[in-house]
């Protein structure tokens, strides 16, 4: 287990290096910046000072090394637009909100997706299955920003059951719309994969044995079926995390949640390149970590899997 973990962590280094290089080059190749203002151009002297301050006149390789060195020490550079905070402070302020929302969305996805997929498999080819399939089709085809706007329109604007946006922590009703909007697609993805894998498992001999020895139907499905059907589910969880991250860009913007996703969007439109670069790295780290956790969780779900 320890050796496996070390190997995986070492393998993550080249991936991160390439992500960093790619993002760095892209950000530095992009012409223009936040100081390009067609109506009120900055004085050349001011521009020169700004460039000197942010080391933009140094050769590219020097900037590349400098940023990397600082990043390893936890300093992610300044924000071009938000001069009162550096990028590390911005992440500390905005990231926890997105973490909470993302976790809530994942919990929602698991809590609805697994029962939905189980019911669809157990009641295969009945109206219940077709209804579940219908929900899955909606989840696959409708992007989260459309889902968010529709939810806000129906539940906030028309019915007045919920506020249209904002954020007051996990225990406030404001969390509901963004949570469902982000978690809906992951929930349907889970349901779809679970249905397929459960259908396979339910045809196995040990299920027949369990039924034959007189176990109650629900117990057979949950204890013997779902548990064994979960392995393929772990595989898709990596995609789900990516879904939750990119979902936060749109949904946080629409529902005015002050999270890192919304900040990322502001940074793209404000051409705040250091923030873009740092956040791209942050998202890559999260994805790689989650994929690693998923692989490790196989061992918990499936005792046949041993890491050596």
């Amino acid at each position: 287990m320890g050796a496996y973990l070390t190997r995986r962590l070492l393998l993550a280094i080249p991936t991160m290096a390439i992500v960093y290089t790619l993002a760095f080059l892209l950000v530095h190749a992009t012409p223009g910046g936040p100081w390009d203002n067609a109506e009120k151009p900055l004085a050349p002297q001011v521009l020169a000072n700004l460039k000197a301050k942010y080391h933009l006149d140094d050769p590219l390789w020097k900037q590349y090394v400098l940023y990397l060195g600082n990043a390893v020490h936890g300093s992610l550079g300044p924000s071009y637009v938000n001069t009162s905070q550096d990028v590390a402070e911005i992440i500390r302020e905005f990231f926890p909100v997105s973490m909470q929302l993302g976790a809530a969305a994942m919990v929602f996805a698991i809590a609805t997706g697994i029962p939905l997929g189980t019911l669809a498999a157990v009641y295969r080819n009945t109206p219940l299955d077709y209804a579940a399939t219908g929900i899955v089709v909606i989840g696959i085809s409708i992007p989260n920003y459309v889902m968010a706007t529709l939810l806000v329109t129906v539940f906030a604007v028309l019915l007045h059951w919920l506020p249209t946006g904002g954020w007051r922590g996990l225990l406030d009703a404001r969390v509901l719309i963004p949570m469902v909007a982000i978690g809906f697609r992951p929930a349907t993805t889970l349901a779809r994969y679970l249905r397929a894998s459960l259908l396979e498992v339910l045809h196995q001999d040990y299920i027949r044995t369990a039924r034959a020895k007189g176990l109650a139907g629900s117990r057979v499905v949950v204890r013997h079926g779902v548990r064994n059907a979960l392995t393929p589910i772990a595989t898709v969880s990596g995609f789900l995390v990516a879904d939750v991250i990119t979902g936060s860009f749109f949904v946080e913007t629409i529902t005015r949640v002050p999270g890192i996703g919304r900040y990322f969007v502001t940074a793209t439109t404000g051409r705040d390149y250091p923030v873009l670069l740092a956040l791209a790295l942050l998202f890559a780290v999260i994805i790689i970590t989650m994929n690693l956790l998923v692989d490790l969780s196989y061992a918990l779900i499936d005792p046949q899997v041993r890491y050596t």
Partner: protein
Amino acid sequence: MASSSLLEAGAAVRRGDARRGYRRALARFARHRMAALGAAFLAVVLAVAAAAPVVAPYRYDKQDLLSTYEAPDAGHLAGTDALGRDVLSRLMYGARVSMSVGLAATAIVLLVGVPTGLLAGYFGGTLDLMLMRVVDIVYAIPYLLLVVLLQTFFTAFLPAIRAGPLVWLRALNQATGGVAAIVLALSLVGWLDVARVARGQALALRHREFVQAAKSLGASEKHVLAAHLLPNIAAPIIIMATLLVPSFIIAEAGLSFLGLGVQPPTPSWGIMIADGVDAIESYPRLVIAPAIVLAATLLSLNFVGDGLRDALDPSSER
């Protein structure tokens, strides 16, 4: 006596079979009816997109600041937006952006991805190794994040091209209101996925008997690839293409929603949703209209894809 009860039992089983077969046929029929419905809707959207300058009642950028936020009436069937522009006309022109991005990006990723994947899977070697490394790395980054970064680059880079061999790209981008940049960013990442699938298919087929037979009869590698592999991977590739079109449409509307897509005043359903969100509390119809049209288009594409899958690959019964 015994035989007659057996016969009865057999008949009962057959009746059950028939009923189950009938029910399955019904379910399949229902699926295909949705596919037909979706195809009809898509035909309308495509026709409107192609004929937008003729059928749209107004131009997409015609402002009327004296009648902003007008409710739907005879003059403006879907009302007007914050600048007094006709919402129906903008939806029609928006269909142009969505459809052209979806189709153009899909065409490009197929043209690049299928040959690359085919060659990598069939011959293996360095090309295959490089392809798989790139795929591995790109899979560690969310697709949309990568596209957002690329698009941030292209929206600033393309208009800045003043001379050189890429000037035509700038002109194309300007003429299409930014569509060229989106197609470029989407296909630059998207072709990898197609290549991966084509590679997997080629890998699975290259040791099959019919390929070996063709080779032992003296067929050239070129002939094997073109006449034996390509037709055999056509079905999974077509099925994949039906999923690519909606994913590109989703990405385009998403980028435009973020302000990284088409350049205003060119209308895109994504921009219309973003604009509508600003006034969602007073005029929800401004966000509902593009959201519904986009959702209906995506659902239709999905149903058509399902129908095609059933038609092309009968073994994939769910």
